[in-house]
């Protein structure tokens, strides 16, 4: 938690970046809403999905995906220059610290980039209100779970830098997959049927789509519980894989160090 707060304060010091971040987010939202509007043309609804639902989906997903974006080369850099060994001497778990720092950065971006940009957006577009006040806390839980899933996927690939010379390429490719398959560019509603079916067996659906659907009230009762359970299941599975890679990687490092 301390680390998260520290990172948060760190970010506050760059005022210009902060201002530009807001402008950037607001412009991106404006432009994509134009694109969706043009796609909709005169149609009120497509497949039962209205334009304002798509707009809401896009704005929430953009906010989250900005927040979920952090320096994924951190572990590789630490391994390359050898400073990772110092980390093991510290009395806190490296993975927990890494997670806390990333999460702190994410919280910063949500509060200071996304919320102001959201207010600007609300000046010129109508978005769907949350389906109920009770839905919001559930959605926040789901967002947190989604973040964990994404973080774990990224962490697994980062641990590969114990073996590979550079993971930059793989991380870039991974990010493309995530941004397309999680629906952050085109909502999963509009994907071809077969692709949707396949995606329901992957963790991608659980990252942004589940929280957004909860917000829009598309999930309720049993479906809602099921969606949350799926998220938890993915976290458990990815968590196991991540810890296996991490332990193997650390062991390899120690052996190499002699």
């Amino acid at each position, binding site marked *: 938690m301390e680390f998260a707060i520290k990172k948060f304060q760190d970010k506050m010091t760059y005022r*210009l*970046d902060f201002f*530009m971040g807001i*402008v*950037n987010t607001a*412009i*991106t939202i*404006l*432009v994509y809403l*134009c*694109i969706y*509007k*043009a*796609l*909709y*043309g005169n149609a009120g609804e*497509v*497949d039962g999905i209205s334009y304002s639902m798509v707009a809401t989906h896009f704005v929430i997903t953009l906010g989250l995906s900005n927040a979920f974006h952090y320096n994924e080369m951190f572990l590789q850099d630490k391994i390359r220059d050898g400073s990772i060994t110092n980390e093991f001497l510290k009395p806190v778990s490296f993975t927990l610290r890494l997670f806390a720092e990333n999460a702190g950065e994410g919280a910063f971006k949500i509060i200071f980039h996304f919320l102001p940009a959201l207010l600007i957006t609300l000046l010129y577009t109508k978005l769907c209100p949350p389906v109920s006040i009770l839905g919001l806390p559930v959605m926040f839980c789901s967002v947190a779970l989604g973040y964990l899933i994404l973080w774990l996927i990224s962490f697994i690939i980062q641990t590969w830098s114990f073996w590979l*010379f*550079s993971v*930059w*390429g*793989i991380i*870039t*490719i991974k*990010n*493309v997959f995530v*941004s*397309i398959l999680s629906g952050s*560019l*085109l909502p999963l509603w*509009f*994907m*071809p049927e077969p692709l949707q079916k396949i995606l329901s067996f992957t963790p991608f659906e659980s990252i942004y789509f589940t929280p957004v659907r909860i917000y829009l009230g598309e999930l309720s009762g049993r479906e809602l519980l099921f969606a949350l359970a799926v998220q938890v299941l993915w976290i458990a599975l990815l968590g196991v894989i991540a810890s296996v890679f991490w332990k193997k990687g650390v062991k390899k490092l120690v052996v190499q160090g002699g």
Partner: protein
Amino acid sequence: MNELRIALQSLKMSVKTRMQYRADSLVAALAVFIRESANIIVIYLALLKFDSINGWNVNEMLFLFSLLFLTYALVVSLFADLRDFSRMIREGRFDWLLVRPRGLLFQLILNNADIIASVGHGTLGILLFLISAGKVGIRWDFATILYYVGAIVGGVLLQGGMFIFFSSLSFYFVETNSLREIFYWNMRKFAGYPISIYHKLIQGLIIYVVPFAFVNYFPAQYLLRKPDMAGFNEAYIYIAPFVGGIVYLAAYLFWRISVKRYYSTGN
């Protein structure tokens, strides 16, 4: 001719440097290719559902995108150093060039080529062109081919000019990256779509401030003649290939003025 020899030598060096780590470079080029394809895949999937975007169908959209990628592939192989110029100044590498017996811009343009980005963008651009060019109803005769080549050259000069302009700003401000992030990279993202779908304000930005519209939208309009051109001045599609040269010249003059400043503060 001496200049040309240096140019070729320099390009060879860039390629050789990258080939030191062959596998790594290939993965990186592939990563660039895939990253850039993301937008294409999304627009493709979206148009499976929605048919058209403001009257533009899938192939026409791909054609519009192809101009952006083809020109950028050439831009990064020529202007890579100017793209990363603010870092160059900060690390003091710019000072090396000052003592060499060749023009500064000449050196900057030749010094470094981002082969990886060039291959990634170029492959995608060629691929999109091959897929779409035959299906969008363009009659490829002498006039259209001449126009097309002119548009590509213009688009390269235009983006190169913008890099030179932003680089020149580095002589006045320490940090220019966020400015460029907003004006260059954002606009480039938006220019992939028919600009007629945007708010008037953004259209103004893309036509007059960061004139990406002349890189792909107006040239594509000359060849495709979509009805949404009605919202713009018809003359734009005829001047499109020449705008690049003008922007480049203006940027060059601005560079000349700005570089003088660096001499004076440097000493």
